[in-house]
């Protein structure tokens, strides 16, 4: 274990959240809960990035009273990356949900295992 685990508690939380989301995505049989897991996973990564940009005692990167010194503001790059990332995760969520609807109208279940069992039954 390295020296900075306690100082990086935010990142530690984000790693735990990432793994919770990851486990949900792998193990939940219900598609909707899989999608929630996906969103949790994405949010965790964004939390990680936002923590990386934070500097104690400084304010948000919006220029106030024309002060443009590096000493005054936090790092703006992670915020920009997260903004892009959020759009990506919304698009993916919408796509996954519409796939869910189509799958449900076809097979009348949200359980992926059941669907693959039905598919095998059809195939043979």
């Amino acid at each position, binding site marked *: 274990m390295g020296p900075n685990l306690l100082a990086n508690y935010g990142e530690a939380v984000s790693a735990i*959240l990432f793994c*919770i989301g990851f486990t949900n995505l792998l193990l939940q049989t219900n598609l909707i809960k899989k*999608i929630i897991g996906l969103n*949790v996973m994405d949010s965790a990564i964004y939390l990680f990035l936002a923590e990386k*940009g934070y500097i104690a005692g400084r304010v948000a990167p919006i220029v106030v009273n024309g002060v443009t010194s590096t000493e005054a503001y936090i790092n703006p790059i992670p*915020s920009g990356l997260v903004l892009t990332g959020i759009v990506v995760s*919304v698009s993916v969520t919408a796509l996954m949900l519409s796939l*869910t609807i189509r799958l449900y109208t076809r097979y009348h279940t949200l359980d992926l295992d059941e669907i693959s069992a039905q598919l095998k039954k059809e195939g043979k």
Partner: protein
Amino acid sequence: MTAFQIILMGLLIICAVSVSFSKNLLNAILIYMSFSLVMSMLWICLESPDLAITEAAVGAGITSVLFFVTLKKIHAIEAAEPEEKEESKDE
């Protein structure tokens, strides 16, 4: 401020775990909404108001509305009340 952040992070973990174990899909989605709200508060604490606004409008608003519509579509909810919940967060 640190104590407040730690409380929020604890809430995040509680929300994420209870999403995984909740049996009812509607409950899961509601918990996910609160997860997003807590996340946007956390981003205010981390001095990123841009992210907070976006997360509040998108994570807690749009994504949840899409989830509700999906649930409704697959007849998991019969009644039509959850649509009203979106308006409270847009303010």
